[in-house]
């Protein structure tokens, strides 16, 4: 069976996901607030080529799925570090990987590549500049942001490990939110010894908070239905002053 990938490091979105792909894990479907391009397959895209590409990334035991091994290889092919570079995540999101975390299946790949007009590694490489997060408008980014959480889950788990959330946050929020503020939230989370897992709702609301509340004295509403974690963050900020 497959050798497990060696590298386990802190920054990884993906490393913990390396596992034998013969196990079909069931999880709930990733909700679809992802990027929706209205495209129909144009004749200029070579379906057979797309299929061949997928085959080179698909799992040994299951040709329908490309899990993290394959995705790492994809990264190599387009010269992006799959473990460090957020653009791989953006790519997977644009391709429409949503059925299960840490993988993309053939149907998704076929559809996604057709929509993005990709049928070769070269075209994939050419796509890279457009994968920059800065290009996403608010709505699109929200979709990606939720995808990032969902895709990073382990199997059927619904929550993410706090450490992973911290790394993910740093990766996806950079340049969109003030670094100082990101660091502040990270510092708070690291401090919270009784918090080990983060839920999707908390993940989403942190971003809402960073967007809506610039000054806790004036913009923060105690009755604002913020998750308790956010209330605690506000407390933390107030005591730091």
């Amino acid at each position: 069976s497959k050798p497990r990938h060696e590298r386990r490091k802190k920054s990884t979105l993906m490393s913990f996901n390396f596992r034998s792909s013969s196990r079909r894990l069931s999880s709930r479907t990733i909700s679809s607030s992802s990027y929706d391009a209205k495209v129909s397959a144009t004749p200029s895209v070579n379906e057979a080529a797309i299929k061949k590409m997928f085959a080179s990334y698909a799992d040994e035991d299951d040709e329908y799925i490309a899990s993290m091994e394959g995705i790492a290889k994809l990264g190599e092919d387009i010269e992006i570090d799959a473990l460090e570079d957020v653009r791989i995540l953006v790519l997977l999101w644009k391709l429409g990987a949503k059925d299960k975390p840490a993988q993309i299946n053939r149907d998704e790949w076929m559809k996604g590549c057709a929509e993005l007009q990709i049928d070769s590694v070269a075209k994939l490489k050419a796509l890279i500049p457009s994968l920059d997060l800065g290009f996403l408008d608010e709505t699109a980014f929200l979709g990606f942001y939720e995808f990032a959480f969902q895709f990073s889950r382990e199997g059927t788990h619904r929550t993410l490990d706090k450490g992973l959330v911290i790394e993910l946050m740093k990766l996806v929020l950079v340049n969109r939110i003030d670094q100082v503020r990101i660091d502040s939230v990270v510092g708070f989370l690291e401090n919270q010894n009784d918090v080990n897992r983060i839920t999707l709702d908390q993940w989403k609301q942190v971003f809402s908070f960073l967007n809506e509340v610039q000054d806790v004295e004036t913009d923060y509403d105690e009755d604002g239905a913020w998750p308790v974690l956010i209330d605690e963050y506000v407390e933390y900020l107030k005591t730091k002053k």
Partner: protein
Amino acid sequence: SLLKSNLSMLLDLGQSSSGSSSNVYESDFESVFLGTTQEFYRLESLEYLSRNTASEYVKKAENRLGEEHRRATRYLSPTTESPLTAIVETELVDRHAKTLVEMEHSGFAALLKDSTHKMDDLRRMYDLFARVPLTVDFLRNALSENVKATGKILVSDQEKGLAEPTAFVKGVLNMRKKYSEVVEGAFRSEKRCQKRLRESFEDFLNADSRAASCLAVYVDELLRGGLKGLSEARVDEELNKVILIFRYLQDKDVFESFYKQHLAKRLLNQRSVSEEAERAMVSLLKAECGYQFTSKLEGMFNDMRISRDTRESYRNFKLMQQQQAIVLGESKSSGMVDIEVDVLTTGYWPSQAVPQCILPDSVKSAIERFNKFYLQKHTGRKLSWQTSTGSAELRATFGEESKLRRHDFCVSTYQMCALVLFNDSPTKTLAQIREATNIPDAELRRHLISLCTPKHRVLRKSSRGKIIASDETFTFNKDFTSKLKRVKIPLVSMKETQRDSSGNLTKNGIGSGVGDLDNGMVPVPASVEEDRRHAVEAAIVRIMKARKSLHHNDLIAEVSKQLSVRFVPPLQFVKKRIESLIEREYVERSGNDRRLYMYVA
């Protein structure tokens, strides 16, 4: 009189001139008059204050107001009276309201302390202040402060262990009596003041779970014997007093939890002063909080009743078996232990969850016999034996061969298990006993220590003093003596067993049995916390299912309202439950508005 005719002259003058806003009376007389009056009273009030007690001042003020009124009706135009009164009231009352309340020894606050004797003074002050309604707030505040301060002392006495829990309750009852009289006698039963009084009591009684705990102990003492010999009417009176305080409690479920624990002990050890009194208390609680609140308690009573019947049938069953054995010529072994069993429905009774200890063989077989009997009648049920409770009668023999002494001991189940071990060897270590019986360490120590006390030294322990060392050895005390043939061994309290090597109570020992935290606060018991989680979640789901979508604040309000009969959930507690339900997809946030929740079908 002369003055009157002069003034009416001015008035007439004024009325004849047309259109002008201020007439002669007002401009030439009234304004000057009012001005000088104001000056006069400003000075006089200060003078009065410096020389008189508050009560004397009040009397003087009353007099002045009376005089002005008489003068006004006699001499002045009717229109003058109200501004005149207003000025006098402002100068005499409004300006000095705070001082009058706070004056040392004679101010309202001071008088409150001696309210039984000073009621007239208090009322007089209220009547005076009532003329300037806003000033009555000072009086209400003083009342509130007084109540809270007195309450704080009662609480602090409990925290420091200076008083018994029942003293707390009696103290609160006395306070209630005293301050109700004040509200009635001084504040003329004013509604606002009644509300304020209630809030002040609720304030110090709900700081933590201590009041609930003390109240439960108080009721326990009443129902164990405090009510003995009292007429039905008196019993009702006493129990109703309990309800008076119960009403102030926000966390009624905490009280219920404590109450249930005490009730369980009373029922199982047959300690109730009377069944009627027990049921009367439950009825009162039901009337306050509804059927839901007391259904488990009533279940407990039911269990006891059914238990009695079961015991009866088991006794008959055993008799029958014995007779059969005689007929068949079998000799039933005389080593058989006789047991009396109470069968309780889990769920009604306070949960124990202590695994069964290792029982002596003879007891085990007796239990097996009962199991067979019971499960035959009630197939599908499961019996779990609560060895942490129960008692046993043991016969022990002391002394020398020539002069043996026999005593019967009434001991706990755990003690029985431990003592029986000494049949094979007169000396056992703590570790050996623990291994052979599987009794949890803390309880084991408590039950063993109770067998080593000076008065009931059935066992000798190796170390001196009150604590049990980890390498302690116990020896059967064959020199034990007692005047009584049948000796009941009392259990020392858990508190007593928690002493350090110098005999001082450890931190765990100092708290009451309710489990105080470091800051002196009595926390909500864990089982109650868990029940609350379920209750809040059920309420949220129920409400969301009915309303389909609901704004955050409205949901919180609705949940709190529905639960208020039992307890007041802290805001963060409800929020956490909402989040949990979001995570489990019972509820979701509306896409556009974070504060709007939608029910997920």
